[in-house]
């Protein structure tokens, strides 16, 4: 599964959300991403948080580890190396 290894490095560029939606629908859309970034600056007081959906009960589309891609796109494109791939079940 994809894990958030370095939350503090996240700059809120949302590139992960964008590439994730690209994997799912071949277009860019924040709402079609399995990742949701809530950088603290967006609402100014809360702690930063990155959530990845692994079950439909969380939200759709769920992360399929970029099935069909050479490598998960969020890991490949994140400029700050926030994400890491770990071999374990979700």
């Amino acid at each position: 599964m994809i894990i958030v290894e370095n939350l503090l490095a996240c700059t809120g560029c949302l590139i992960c959300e964008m590439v994730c939606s690209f994997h799912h629908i071949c277009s860019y859309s924040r709402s079609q991403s399995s990742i949701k970034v809530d950088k603290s600056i967006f609402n100014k007081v809360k702690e930063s948080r990155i959530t990845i959906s692994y079950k439909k009960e969380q939200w759709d589309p769920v992360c399929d580890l970029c099935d069909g891609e050479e490598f998960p796109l969020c890991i490949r494109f994140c400029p700050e190396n926030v994400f890491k791939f770990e071999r374990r079940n979700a």
Partner: protein
Amino acid sequence: MRGLKYGYAGNVLRVDLTNSRIYTKPTENYFPKYIGGRGINQWILFKELRQWVTPFEPSNIICFGAGALVGTLVPGAARMSIDSKSAYNTGIGSGNSGGWFAAELKFAGYDNIVIHGKSKQPVYLWIENDKVLLRSAEELWGKTTAETEKLIKDDIGQDDIQVLCIGPAGENLVRPACIVVSGFRVAGRCGLGAIMGSKNIKAIAVKGTGAIRIKEPGEFMTLVEKVSERLRRSNGAKARREFGTLRSSTLYRNLSASPYKNYQDDYIPSENFAKISPEVFHNSFEVDRYSCITCPTPCGHVYFIGSGPYLGTKCFKAESNSIWNFGGRLAIDDAGAILKAQEECCQLGLDIDNTSSVIAFAIDCFQNKIISKKHTGGLELSWGDHGVILALIKKIAYREGFGNILAEGSLRASQKLGKGSERYSFHIKGQDLIEGIRSMKGWALGVVVSARGGTHTRGALATECMKYSHEDSQRIFGVKTAGDAQVYEGKPKIVIYFEYVNSLLDSLGVCFFTGNWTSPDGMSPQELAQFYSLTTGIKTSEAELIKAGERIHNLEKMFNVYHAGFTRNDDYPPKRLMEEPIKSGPLKGEVLRREDWDKMLSEYYSLHGWDQKTSWPNKEKLEELDLFECIETLLQAKQIHHLNGK
């Protein structure tokens, strides 16, 4: 209603506040000729605004344009251009902001928003995809920008939305009022916040769940990856990651391009600068970093003041301008106070450039005994006194007492105060000047000729400060002098290059810092053409794209011709900067020599195909650029005889 175009969202949202009428028009009416963002905004303004409309009248129009590549993964494609008739003069008013708002707008299905008319009561515009509503802003009126954003999120019941808004300054029609986007990004200059205020519109909030499609997705992603990697490794990106844009304040200061005490000098003394250098902000106050949407080279930094009189202040953006303005122009030698002033302006909805300039004017007048405590309501004005400067910021935002005069900008304030006070007002085309322009000649030319009235974000050469090598300069611009600050030769050609390219960047919605404005490693026009072609499926060459940039630049110029009648006389620096040399620092003695300026200006007009006397584009140039409507408009206004300089 959703358009099916690639890259574009497909719709221009039109809002008539007078009749609460909301409708859409297809974006394809405007592209590829005007690309998007600023280009489309400028065209709508030229086509629809009449000469006799003054900035604060309901008939003025304000346009918000997300660039053509916004909402895609192009590095730094996060920008929105905001354009209207300027609150400072009757010419073009233009601002630009980063953040996350522009992309959200496109996901909601809109490329541009065009607002005209005036609402009877305060309102804000709520856009949730196809659902667009005007909601009451009675409860928001008078609130700071952070309070406004929070109250709107509460009102809508969603946190994950984007908001742009004005503060009390905009409501009070204060000319230095700005528009605050996504909480702390700002479209600062030209008094755009006051334009919103004059229309009784406090904010725009947007939530979009749609998608932006790419015509050639595979090739597009390959190019994104290649370019992003290169940008990330560039020296500029590394420095911005560490210091934000603050880092360039050192470079400008070392080139004697940081106005000190209202242009008494252009060099901040070393003992002062040591207390307000980028390193001080970085080491003492920085707590977090951020980037705008899709930017792999973050320049945003969050600062927190943990001790002293401004304890507890959190500031979400400080720019090179913050040091120029508060540290140099007003001579504040306390980094914490600079952050406090920056944050105060953001909360009240004041542009730091125009606000600090008019305060510098006031202090200079006070120090030279043109005004006294009688004028200032008992305040003793002196350089670097941040307590008083903060008090003035508040007075300006609320038009209290002396603040009511300063809220008009330094030119109008000097006209009101008289007694020779105009000597201390430094402005270009009526808007306050903020840049140090005596030492860097190409930078100066770009700043002074800019249509919106004094700004370094049109053709001004950052290449001089960044010291482009002769080889890079020759390769990119066809002349060697881009990095030679004190040289006049070759500068008009490079300024024009950036006028076209920066018009394009604002229309594509791409940040200057991921373009090649500050670094030869930045995205080239050729790469922009590739991105535009792959995104939209409209095959566009580099030359065609540059031509569109030229068209948009000329359109902006034509707005000034038609609405303000600015001529060659308006393209000169303030007289004192051509007479009084820089007093200290490595470039002591530098001044803008009138005869060299004249020569540079003549070459600039001639390369543009503009008339030498009027500075206006000639008829052949407008025909070449397919701007026949501009000729028509001027014909109707009986201004056509000026087109050929007669």
